[in-house]
């Protein structure tokens, strides 16, 4: 199960890149859907196999972030627009991360 998934995903991403051109066409949305759906199934599968909790949490969150990136870049067209939007999103994500880290700095060390 583990091996075919990344292969399928890379193939899909390759297709999305070539389909983009100027305007995302019908196909791109189909590819993003299948990638996202497969990633969701992968997440669920990870909960069923016997691996350490911390590793599972890490992997699942990584997949969620990857899914978010696909939605932002392709479905929400960030990849096809002026760079400034992507810059904004990056700064915002960093900001949210800092809020979480600083708050946890209190809770972890109390």
């Amino acid at each position, binding site marked *: 199960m583990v091996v075919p998934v990344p292969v399928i995903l890379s193939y899909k991403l390759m297709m999305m890149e070539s389909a983009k051109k100027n305007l995302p066409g019908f196909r791109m949305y*189909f590819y993003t859907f299948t990638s996202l759906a497969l990633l*969701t199934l992968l*997440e*669920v599968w990870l909960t069923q196999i016997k691996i350490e909790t911390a590793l599972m949490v890490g992997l699942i969150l990584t997949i969620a972030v990857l899914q978010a990136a696909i939605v932002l870049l392709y479905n929400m067209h960030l990849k096809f627009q002026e760079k400034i939007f992507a810059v904004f999103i990056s700064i915002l994500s960093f900001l949210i991360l800092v809020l979480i880290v600083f708050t946890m700095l209190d809770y972890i060390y109390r």
Partner: protein
Amino acid sequence: MEHNHAIVHRDDEASRIGMWLFIFTELFLFAGLFLVFIVYRYKYSESFHLASKELNITIGAINSIVLLLSGMTIGISHVAIQKGNKKLTLYLLAITIILGIVFLVNKYFEWRIKFEHGLYPGSVDLLALSKGDIMFFGLYFFMTGLHALHLIAGLAFISVVFGAVVREKVHATKFALLENCGLYWHLVDLVWLFLFPLFYLIN
């Protein structure tokens, strides 16, 4: 000049920027809740582990797929309108709305099962459980509830766009409204992409 006109000039780029800025506010709104979730997940890791087993992964996963599918249909409608295909656009928007309703129906059943088991905020049964359980379910109802409200708002938005396409106020060379609606809908999807694993899967 006998009109109290707003000095409006059509600027699609400005309306796109405006929509993105609004999306940023929504991201921060939910970020605050995710922060609360992370704090209490850390504080009550055992309880959260166990409590999340109460949630049905299958229904959750189905809802994820349903929402992802609706993201695809609204995305394709964005292509369809630019190709001037009014009928296809309307079909796709309608399917998106139907998928959104399916999501809500699933959510209704999920909530109803919880209520029947006495697992809802303020219930005697819930208050008898551990603090971690109370917190988990409080967060569950609040966050999925807020998400559902945003989803309903999204359905209203799509309906407005539907009407605008029918009346041809939105068409092949003027589709910023549909595009911005799509952005909002994808945001609803984005939030769920984090809600699902955090509540249903981390156990």
